[in-house]
C-alpha cells in the first residue's frame, strides 16, 4: 500500500495549491499509474473519459440540472414564497418556516443544496429582514434548510454516488425521503420552539398575505404538480430516473412558459444548465481516473483486506468516517470529499457488510453538516454572497440545524430502517 500515501499527499498538495478538483483527482491517478505500473496510461485515461461521460445514468443528472435551471430562470421561487407565506405566518416562528417548507418543496424539483439556498434565500431573506425578523434565525434557518436539497430526491449528489458505487439511483432516492422529511420536521420544530417570538408578518411577500390564504397558494399549484409528477413517475414504477427527469424537464418548460410567457426563459435555462453539467461530469471523469488507478494498483483489494484484518467493527468504522467527513468537510466541498474518498471506502463497505444505499444517505447527511460548517461550508458562502452577513454569524445561526443533522445521524445508525424501509418496501 506504499502508493496510498503518495497518492494522498499528491492529491491534497494539488488541492492545496488551488488545482481544480477534477484535475487534481485525475493528475493524482495518472502520476500514480505512471510511477507504479507500466500500463498504457493514454488508453486508461481515454477509456475513463469515454465510459464516464457516456454512462446512461448521467442522463438523469443532466436532465435534473436542466429542470432546476429552467425553474430558476422562471422565478418560480417567488411564487412559492408568496404561496407559503400566509400559512406559515400562523405558525410559532412565523415566516421563518417558509425557509424550511420552501426549501423542502424546492429540493423536490432541484437537486442541489447551494442552488436551493440561493433560490429560496434570494426571495425569503430580504422579505424576512424587511419584516424585522431576527437576522440570525433568518439566515441560520436558510443555511440549515437548504441542505434538504441534497437529501430530498431528486438529489444530484445521490445520482453521483449511485454512478460511482453502481448502486440503484431509485433506491437511493427512496432512501432519502424519510430522513429528508424527518429533517424538515425537526427544522420546523426547532423554529417553533426556539424562534417562536417573531413579528406577525402580515404584510409578507409583497402583500400576498392580504390576498387571503388560498389565492397565493393556488398560484403555486403548477410547481407542486411538477414535484408530484416527478415523484409519481419515479416511485410509481412508471419511469426510470432518466424518464422521470425528462417528465420534470417537460413540466418545468410548461411552468416557465406559464409564468413568464417568454421563450427566452427556456434558452436561458438551457444555456445556464450546461456549465454545472460540465462541472459535475468532469469531476466524475477525475474520480474515474483515480478509481482506475486504485483498481490497477490493487489498492481497493488491499484496503478491503486491511479493514477485514484490523478488527474494526461496523460502528467503529462508521464513527471514524463521521469524524473524517465532518473534519474534512470543514475545509473542503462535500462533493469533492465524496468522490475523493469513495474509491477507498467502497471495498471497506463490502468487507464490513454495510448496505451501500444506507451508506449513501449516511454520507450525504455528513456532507450536509459540512455544507454549514465554517470555514468553507458551501451554503454559508452562498448566503454570505446574498446577504453580506459574516460567515461566523450565519454559522452561529445554523448550529441548531446542525444539531438536528447530528441527531439524524445517530438515529439512522441506531435504526437503519429509517433509511432502508422505503427502498425495501417498494422494491
Amino acid at each position: 500500500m506504499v502508493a496510498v500515501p503518495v497518492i494522498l499527499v499528491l492529491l491534497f498538495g494539488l488541492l492545496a495549491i488551488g488545482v481544480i478538483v477534477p484535475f487534481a483527482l485525475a493528475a493524482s491517478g495518472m502520476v500514480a499509474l505512471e510511477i507504479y505500473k507500466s500500463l498504457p496510461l493514454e488508453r486508461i485515461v481515454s477509456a475513463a473519459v469515454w465510459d464516464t461521460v457516456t454512462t446512461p445514468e448521467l442522463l438523469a443528472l443532466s436532465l435534473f440540472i436542466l429542470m432546476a435551471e429552467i425553474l430558476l430562470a422562471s422565478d418560480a421561487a417567488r411564487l412559492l414564497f408568496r404561496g407559503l407565506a400566509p400559512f406559515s405566518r400562523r405558525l410559532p416562528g412565523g415566516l421563518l418556516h417558509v425557509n424550511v417548507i420552501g426549501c423542502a418543496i424546492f429540493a423536490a424539483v432541484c437537486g442541489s443544496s447551494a442552488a436551493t439556498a440561493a433560490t429560496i434565500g434570494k426571495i425569503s431573506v430580504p422579505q424576512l429582514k424587511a419584516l424585522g425578523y431576527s437576522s440570525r434565525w433568518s439566515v441560520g434557518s436558510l443555511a440549515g434548510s437548504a441542505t434538504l436539497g441534497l437529501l430530498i430526491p431528486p438529489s444530484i449528489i445521490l445520482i453521483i454516488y449511485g454512478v460511482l458505487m453502481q448502486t440503484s439511483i431509485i433506491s437511493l432516492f427512496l432512501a432519502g425521503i424519510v430522513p429528508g422529511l424527518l429533517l424538515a420536521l425537526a427544522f420546523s420544530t426547532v423554529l417553533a420552539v426556539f424562534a417562536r417570538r417573531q413579528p406577525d408578518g402580515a404584510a409578507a411577500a409583497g402583500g400576498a398575505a392580504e390576498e387571503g390564504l388560498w389565492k397565493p397558494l393556488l398560484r403555486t399549484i403548477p410547481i407542486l404538480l411538477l414535484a408530484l409528477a416527478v415523484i409519481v413517475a419515479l416511485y410509481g414504477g412508471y419511469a426510470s430516473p432518466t424518464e422521470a427527469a425528462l417528465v420534470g424537464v417537460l413540466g418545468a418548460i410548461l411552468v416557465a412558459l406559464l409564468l413568464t410567457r417568454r421563450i427566452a426563459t427556456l434558452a436561458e435555462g438551457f444555456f445556464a444548465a450546461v456549465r454545472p453539467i460540465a462541472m459535475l461530469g468532469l469531476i466524475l471523469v477525475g474520480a474515474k481516473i483515480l478509481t482506475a488507478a486504485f483498481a490497477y494498483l490493487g489498492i481497493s483489494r488491499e484496503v478491503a483486506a486491511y479493514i477485514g484484518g484490523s478488527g474494526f467493527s461496523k460502528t467503529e468504522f462508521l464513527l471514524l468516517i463521521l469524524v473524517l467527513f465532518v473534519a474534512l468537510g470543514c475545509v473542503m466541498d462535500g462533493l469533492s470529499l465524496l468522490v475523493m474518498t469513495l474509491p477507498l471506502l467502497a471495498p471497506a463497505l463490502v468487507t464490513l457488510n454495510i448496505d451501500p444505499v444506507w451508506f449513501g444517505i449516511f454520507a450525504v447527511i455528513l456532507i450536509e453538516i459540512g455544507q454549514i460548517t465554517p470555514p468553507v461550508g458551501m451554503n454559508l458562502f452562498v448566503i454570505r454572497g446574498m446577504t453580506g452577513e459574516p460567515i461566523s454569524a450565519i454559522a452561529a445561526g445554523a448550529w441548531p440545524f446542525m444539531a438536528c443533522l447530528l441527531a439524524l445521524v445517530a438515529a439512522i445508525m441506531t435504526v437503519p430502517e429509517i433509511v432502508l424501509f422505503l427502498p425495501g418496501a417498494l422494491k
Partner: protein
Amino acid sequence: MACLRRLAAALAKALAVTAALGLLILVLLLVVDLFGRNLFGFTTTFANEWSSFVNGAVIMLAAPLALLKGEHIRVELVLMLRSRRLGRILTLLADAICVLVAAYLCYAVAAMAWESLVNDRRSTWVMRTPLWIPQAALAAGAAALVLAALHHLLSSFVSTGRGR
C-alpha cells in the same frame, strides 16, 4: 497573448452554445423515445445510444466555459491563508498543472477518436454508430479546455507580472 485569450473566450462560448443545443437535441431524442414507446407503440433504436453520446459531448463542450467562469470547484481555504506573493506563485503553478492535465486528456481523447476512425470502430448498440463521431466532439471540447486553461495561466501570469 491578448489574441489567444480572446480566441479561448470566444471558442469556449461558441462550444457552450453548441452544448446547449446538444442538450436540446438530447431532450428531443428522449421525448421521441418516451412518447413513441408509450403512446404510439414504436421503439426508437437510436434514442438511448445517441442520447448518451450527445450527453458526453455536452459535458466536454461546456467544460471550457465552465473553467473560464470559475465554475469548477477548487479548495479556496489555503488560497485565502497564504501571502499575496506566495499566492500568486502557487496560482501560476496550479494553472500550469491544469494546462498539462487538460493537454493530456485532450491527447488521450484525440488519439482514441483517431484510432476509432482508422479502425472503423463502431458502437455495440443497435445503430452501430461510428465511434469517431462522438469521440471527435469530446476531443474538440478537450482541445478548447486546453485553450481555456492556457487563458487562465496567461491571465495569472499577466497579473503576477503587474504585481496584482
